């Protein structure tokens, strides 16, 4: 089963079209293995992206270097998944 320990979901706020384009370019960098939960759309429309642990530092540095605001929407994806599994097992029992 895929492990998401250390994966974070970032909510990115893009202020203008140029920033939308910059984030869209991130999408094409396959080695970062980004998973866009809400894809780049237009200024003012939040972008949510799951970032594997190995890419987090690079992505955050990239966003900060381009003055693109973000916050952490989900601190650790695996901990939410663990909670979900526990809840399912508890209800089954």
């Amino acid at each position, binding site marked *: *089963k895929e492990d998401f320990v250390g994966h974070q979901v970032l909510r990115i706020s893009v202020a203008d079209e140029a920033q939308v384009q910059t984030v869209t370019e991130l999408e094409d960098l396959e080695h970062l293995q980004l998973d866009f*939960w*809400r894809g780049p759309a237009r200024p003012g429309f939040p972008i949510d992206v799951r970032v594997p642990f190995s890419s987090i530092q690079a992505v955050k540095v990239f966003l900060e270097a381009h003055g693109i605001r973000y916050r952490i*929407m*989900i601190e650790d994806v695996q901990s*939410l998944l663990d909670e*979900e599994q526990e*809840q*399912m097992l508890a*209800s089954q029992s």
Partner: protein
Amino acid sequence: RARSTSTFNYDTYHTLEEIYDFMDLLVAENPQLVSKLQIGNSYEGRPIYVLKFSTGGSNRPAIWIDTGIHSREWITQASGVWFAKKITEDYGQDAAFTAILDNMDIFLEIVTNPDGFAYTHSKNRLWRKTRSLTSGSSCVGVDANRNWDAGFGMSGASSSPCSETYHGKSANSEVEVKSVVDFVNDHGNIKAFLSIHSYSQLLLYPYGYKTESPSDKDELDQVAKSAVAALSSLYGTEYKYGSIITTIYQASGGSIDWTYNQGIKYSFTFELRDTGRYGFLLPASQIIPTAQETWLALLTIMEHTLNNPY
């Protein structure tokens, strides 16, 4: 396993097997009202089921509701299970809903992407696409909501098999999509097509692949406004509404663009809770409230469909 749909636990997420067992229980408990149709087999050979709710007649005008086309959007399949039970509970009890089912059929496809859904339970909880293999690529799956024959392959989908929005080799290449297309064409009398996704809290109507407004834009906008107001009346959950391309972004090959182009006027897509706290990992404690509020919006659209025959 639950012994009846009354002991079935609606406020937890379930596996594919548990949902398929639920369907059989519901049919067995309501043989006069509910039947289970198999509209095809998934890429990996799993049966694709649709529940039919009918009080008689032949080829009556019908309403289609599907959930789970994107497998990781678990809140949608869970809501679909709740809707199925609600329909059997409210028929004969709730006057407005009884009038709908006395005149129209309802088709509910709870697990529209069974291979992807099974995969979210077994291997990767965040899997979105189908599980079909693409020759020449090591990447798996097609975004089933970019595979319909409406603006297929245009901007708003990806031609890369590794992308989450890969549109596939050709329109209807995914058997999960083709099965629904064939069912809709064979039935020929579907009047509303409601496809349920998550997340973002949006109620959307065509188009996604082009900026041109649908010819029924004013009416669709009005219906969406009323539906969103009904939804919000229960717990205050706020939705936005509008066309796909103006409200979110360009998305080509989407289901409701195709159904609208087939003449199914009341074509809507829901994006359920939330707006970005848990996203696809919405806690199970929110299943029932989400389903309850969404049902009010569905009722609004179904009533409008009943009262405005075309």
